[in-house]
Every structure is written in C-alpha cells, then in structure tokens.
C-alpha cells in the first residue's frame, strides 16, 4: 500500500538552501518561540521551504529545516510525511485540490472532479504535461457551508459548479487569477437565497456586494 516517500519516480534535487529573504523570514518565525523551543517553528519553516521550492518539499529541504532548527532529520521527516499539505512530490504551478468529503460530495464535488479531469486531461494525482496543473482530491477543507470547495494555491473557491470550474481553469490557463470565494456571489456563508433575518441591517451591504460580484 504505502510506499516509502522516497520512491515516487521523480528526481530529488541534491541541495536546498533558503534564499536570503526566506532565511530572514525563518529567523523571524523562530524568534516567536522561547529559546530552546525552536523546534516549534518546524511547520511554518517547512511551509516557507515548500513555497520557495515551487510548491513541493524535497528531502533536502526537510534536511535544511532540520539543520536550521537543530532537530534530528527524522523528526522533520515525520512531520512532513504526516501532513498532506506538504507535498512530497513535485506539483504543477496550480495545485487544484477538490474537497470530496461528504458535504462537498452531497453538493456535487464528483462533477467538479469530473470537469477537472475532462478539461485538463489528467487523473487525480497527476500533473499536466505542461506542468501547469496538478489535480488532487482532499479530505474536508473546512468550508462545508459553502460546499463544494476547491482550493487552488492559497485560495478557496466556494459554491463551485462545473461551469465555474471551467471558467476558473480557463482563467488560470490564461495566466489570470480568478476571484476567490463564493462563485455564486453569496456573502460569506449566509443562506443560499439571501438573508432571512436582520435584513434591515444587511440589505444595503448585500446589494453593494452583489453589485460588486456581478462586475
């Protein structure tokens, strides 16, 4: 079932060094924790390393974090393999993570996955030949009220319907950044047909945002 993380057929880089800028950032992160407890900075530093390395964490980057924090390398390896948000394999420029846990599934996440597959010509877990898109399925993204949810990079796209998904992928392919958040123009997680209470206070605001979303 599970293969060792080292064995996925991709070429591991042989070295990793934090950029000057990221090293400064790492030092600021480490400074948040009391002296002697710098291992607490492990997770944010892995994130910094992953961002610097184009969205994935090679083992040399884990080693760099371990060495920076004075931790045994295996400890960092344990953390990195525990969390699915650290990608141990290379990903495309846009990492599309479709939530397929129950609420999203009930609201049609299967169609979203299908749309992605059709549009990109790849299966779940694969990357397009041009290295632009990686498609992934994830467990609950924690935004069930706005299901179905797709996370692309750092942004959440909510209330996604297949046609929204196509639009988003097209926009990304063109190099644009589609507007994140609810794709139907819903304000945060209010009822889908608009507010049912406190209308007096929200109508003006809601009108304003709807107008904005329609732009």
């Amino acid at each position, binding site marked *: *079932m*599970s293969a*060792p993380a080292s064995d996925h057929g991709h070429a591991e880089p042989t070295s990793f060094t934090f950029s000057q800028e990221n090293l400064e950032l790492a030092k600021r992160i480490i400074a948040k924790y009391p002296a002697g407890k710098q291992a607490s900075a492990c997770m944010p530093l892995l994130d910094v390393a992953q961002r610097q390395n184009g969205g994935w964490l090679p083992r040399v980057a884990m080693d760099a974090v371990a060495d920076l924090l004075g931790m045994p390398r295996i400890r960092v*390896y344990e953390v990195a393999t*525990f*969390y699915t948000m650290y990608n141990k394999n290379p990903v495309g420029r846009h990492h599309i993570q479709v939530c397929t846990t129950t609420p999203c599934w009930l609201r049609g996440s299967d169609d979203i996955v299908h749309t992605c597959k059709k549009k990109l010509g790849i299966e779940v877990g694969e990357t397009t030949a041009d290295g632009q898109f990686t498609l992934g399925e994830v467990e609950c993204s924690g935004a069930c009220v706005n299901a179905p949810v797709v996370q692309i990079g750092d942004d959440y796209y909510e209330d996604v319907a297949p046609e929204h998904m196509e639009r988003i992928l097209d926009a990304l392919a063109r190099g644009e950044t589609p507007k994140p958040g609810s794709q139907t123009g819903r304000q945060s997680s209010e009822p889908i047909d608009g507010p049912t209470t406190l209308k007096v206070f929200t109508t003006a605001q809601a009108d304003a945002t709807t107008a904005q979303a329609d732009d």
Partner: protein
Amino acid sequence: MPKLTIDGIEIEVEPGTSILQACEQLGIEIPRFCYHERLSVPANCRMCLVEMERAPKPVASCAMPCGDGMVVRTNSETVLKARKGVMEFLLINHPLDCPICDQGGECDLQDQAMAYGFDRGRYGENKRAVEDKYMGPVIKTIMTRCIHCTRCIRFINEVAGVPDVGAVNRGEHMEITTFVEKAIGSELSGNLADVCPVGALTHKPYAFTARPWELRKTETVDVLDAVGSNIRVDARGPEVMRVLPRVNDDINEEWLSDKSRYSYDGLKRQRLDRPYIRQNGKLVPASWAEAFTAIAARLKGLLGNRIAAISGDLVDVEAQFALKELLSRLGSTSLDCRQDGARFDTSVRAGYLFNSGIAGIEKADVILLVGTNPRWEGTLVNARIRKRYLAGNVTIASIGEQRDLTYPYSVIGSGPETLQQLVDGSHPFAETLRAAKNPMIIVGMGAFRRADGLAVQAAARLVGEAYGMFRDDWSGFNVLHTAAARVGGIEAGFLPGEGGRDVHGILDGASKGEIDFVYLLGADEIDTAKLGNAFVVYQGHHGDAGAHRADVILPGAAYTEKNAVYVNTEGRPQLARLAVFPPGEAREDWKIVRALSEVLGNTLPFDTHGQLRQRLMAANPIFGAVGETTPAAWAPFGAQGPVDTAPFVTPITNFYMTDPISRASVTMANCTEALVGPAQERTGTHG
C-alpha cells in the same frame, strides 16, 4: 502518598506511580505493548485499559497516575471487553505468520492474544502490507507485523541517543522507518529487537535458527568489555544460538551492546580444539601429554628470570591465579595482565577501579572524561551517562578527542597538561568542578596507555583530591577499563613481582634474548614480533595473533564454556557459567595450568574448582563477595612526574573487533563494514 483500591485491595503508593505500576506491586498482571518501564510512556496501544470508578470510559493504566481514593477494577466485564476490542483492532493488520516468525513462542502479542483474542477473525478485507526496511547488519525487519507501539523509536531516541528511527506518514499508512534506509548507527541497536513486542524487529544473525523452547538457558556474564554485563546464553546442543541481556540495575540495566550480543558466532570459528606443537616451523597436532612434555623439556633448567607470562583480555581470574602460582614456583616474577601496555599504579585499589559504580553515574553532577571514548570502551557506561544527561542539571566535559558520545559535552583539553591546569586551578573548568556537589572523573585507558601513564594517574588523583572526589559519602574517581580480565588479573596478583618485568620489559627482554620462555594466557593484542626467539606457549581458545606465534598451543575454553570468576571495572566479581562444553580436546583454563604443573613436578595445591576458589578467597577476600563491590579505601597512588603533552588517544579503533572472539565473528565483520566504514583506519590487529 495516594491510597487507592485495586480489585478490592487497598494500596498506598509513591506519588507519581501509575496505576499499572501499582498493579504490578500487587502482582496483578496488566497486558501492555507500548509501555516499557525504562522508556517514556506514550499510551498509544490501549491494551492496558482498566475500569476506574467515576471515569466515564476505561482508562489507560500506564499513563494514569494513582490518585487518592481511586477505585480501580482490572478484571471486570467492561475491562475484558475493552481489551478484547483493542486486541481485535491490533490483529486486523497483523499477519497470521506465527509459524514462520522468529518471535513465535516469546511474543507478547501471541501470548496476550491467548488471553484476549477471539478464536476467529471478523475482518474480511485485505490486510495491509508494509515494505520491509533496512536497519543495519543486525536487525531484521518484517514491517507488516508492526503494531506501532513505538518502543523502538523511544529506545533509539532516549536510551541509545541516536535519533535514526521514526514513524512516517499517518493513520493507517503509518510506518516505522530509518531515515532513510540507513543502518542504525548505534552500538545498542540489538536492543531494538528485544523491546519489540512482536516479530517486526528480530535479530538477523538468529533468524530461522532456533525456537525459544528448544534452547538451554544459562545465566552468565559478558566478557567482551570490562562492564561485565549480565547475560543469558541460549544454547542448543553444543552450539551457542544467541546471547540476551539479563536485568542488573547496577550494571547494564536491561540492555546489551551489539558486540556482546552478536559476537557469539565467533565462538564457532577459528577455535583451537586440540593441542599443537611447532615442528620445523609448522604447527602440528599433538596430544596433551606431548604438548606438556614439550613445555617441560624447554623449561628444564631454565632460571626463573628467563621465564615470563602475559595474560589477555578475556581470561578468567582462576586461570590467572593458577598461572601466577605456577610461575612463582618456577621462580619467575615477570608476569603482567596489562597486555595493552597500560601503565598505572596497582598498589591502591581505588586507583584502578570504577569506584562510584556504574549506577553511581546517576548521582554525579559534573562528569569529566579523561582519555576515554566511553561509547566504544564501555557502551553501557556511556548509556548510563546519557541517562544522567537526560535527567538534567549535569555538566559533561572531556579531555581527549572530540567524538559523538550521544550527549552534548565540551572538550576542555586534549592531553595531560589540562589535568595539571585543573590541579592548580588555572583552567576555566576548575570553577565548574569547584561548584559541583558530586564531581566525577572517568579515566580511560587512553590516558594510561602511554609512557607517562603513572604521572597521568597521579595528576588525575590530584584533580580528584582538589575537588572532593574522595569523600566518605562520595567517590568520584573512576577508571574505565577495556578488558574483562584486567581487574580480575590485578586483584589476583597477576602483576610483576619483585624484580619482575612488566609487559614492556617482557617483550623487550624477549626481543633481546634475555627471556627464553613466554607463556601467553590468551594474550593476542601484543606485538608478537617482539617475542624474538623465545619459546612461546599460547593457551587460549582462538587461533589469533598469539597462537600464530606459538611453539606450543594449549586449547582453552571461551567464556561460555567454563565456570569462572570475572571482575568488572567496578571491582565486582561475577560468575560466568558453563553453557556449552569446550570444543574437541579443549579444557577449562585452570585445569590446563594445574595439569601442566604436575608434569613440571610442581603440582599446584588444588584439585577441584572449589579448592581453587578457596585459595583465591584466602589470597584476596574480594573474590568471596560475588556480585558485590567492595569499597576501595583511598590512599595516594600514581607517581607524580613530568608528563608528555601528547594528546590522549582512545585505544579502540574499531568497536566491533577488539578481541579474538569478535574478530572471528562474521556478524562483527558485517557491522564493521556497514558502520565503521572505510574512513576508519584499519590496522593489522583490528580488522
């Protein structure tokens, strides 16, 4: 002190005692997998569940401290049901391969499944399979059997101090692995298989060779270093099948170094199983009578001052004592048990013993290592220092080489001049020593194995005196020996007598033709080229350096093949017991000396082992206190004098091959290849 009721029995326990420990005090057995009394408590296997009044659910007894007024039940319906549930989950992914599993018959999971398992599985899905991992030359892995108790991770992190093992991935994908696919660089890695409650980690050299119920178990002591670890030798027929540690909290706790554990295959190779005599430059097999006659012929008319003896690292006390008696009857006083050429004063016991005891390390607050690499010279002493380090508030410093000792320490100097600076207080570290309550100094053979050994010993003593290491309530002056025979030899008086030569003098004399007869009692670590034209008798169990040079070979018994006394570095006499008989015509060593004495017409006055022991005890009463240490009275020792500024060098270049047994071992050769590596300089005698 909390008072609680367990199964209707009231018990009062020390604060901080867990319910599981309290149950053990009452003799109630609690099943467990992840809990190990010498490791931290993760409470992740859930097998030790008990029912507690006013608790909504069963609690993990290993992690629940006793509280006042608790009412605990360990045998109720709920408890049984909970444990059965846990067991069923553990067995979901555990293969049913007990018949081909090396742990079979001594497996915690197997035993506890007898009590808490169902007679059939309800799990119809595919079981999970996990790729096996490489963990080095001594640990075999079958990771599908792993139940993720994490004992191995905790052992290697906490006790061994080599964080090479971890758990990767999560949930049902969790796997135990090394980082990544590398050999575990610890001298204690064999203990991983001991702590593993299932057959996931087993001993590679023991794989598929025996079943525990076929083995004859003999409780004895280890002699491959001077620690004197307590071991159990498991034998089947004439063969030693494996070596396991025994619990002794004063010495090895329940761990064992890889050399002590896996060298046993060396006991089956290169053995001397019959006497040999050199004829026309070649060793030819002979009978005992012929061998003794050849020795007698050579000794005839020889003056005592032309006879000498050197004893080796693995020799028991009885043989050394018997040979000493024989030599004194032949008029010789040239005998030495320090074949490595170490120079130290043996007139005062405190000057050559590990006075605080190995357990005493836990009381020290400043530890100064002098010319020693305890990780290689006394692996379990090092483990104890690490245990002290983990307890906190200790300063560890070293005078000598920079090595990875598995705990942080500072190198404050490289040679004897640093000791002198500490004596006169001019070294910055003097301040730390002065502030210490229980300072400790551990001097290794690297400090004595040099021309100025006696002066170094005196300097170390002066450091001890200056900082209160010789007190009525604390003795912090320790010598870490490297050979199991050494302290026993000294206590038995196998030392140069009046006008006698030490090992340097003997070799010097032999090369100059001043010594005609050298008796090597298991001595292999000497420069045999220096024996010149002397007639050499080698008594020992392996065809190593000494036997190659010998004119007559007398086949002796290895430590697993005789009843004998060994004295460890603490000065603690311990009994080695016969587990298997010596091969072929080989005999117990004291008997050989006794038989030879008769041929020489100088019959030694003992016919049985009992009589020999009696004489031994009369000569030195410490041999009577088996298993105990006799505190050594303090008196000045060493010889103050000029010291060389050369840095201390550790005497061991390859941990895995230090003596004839480990040099003959294939497992140790594999370890050397995998772990010592080509970077390590290999000399003629070390590999």
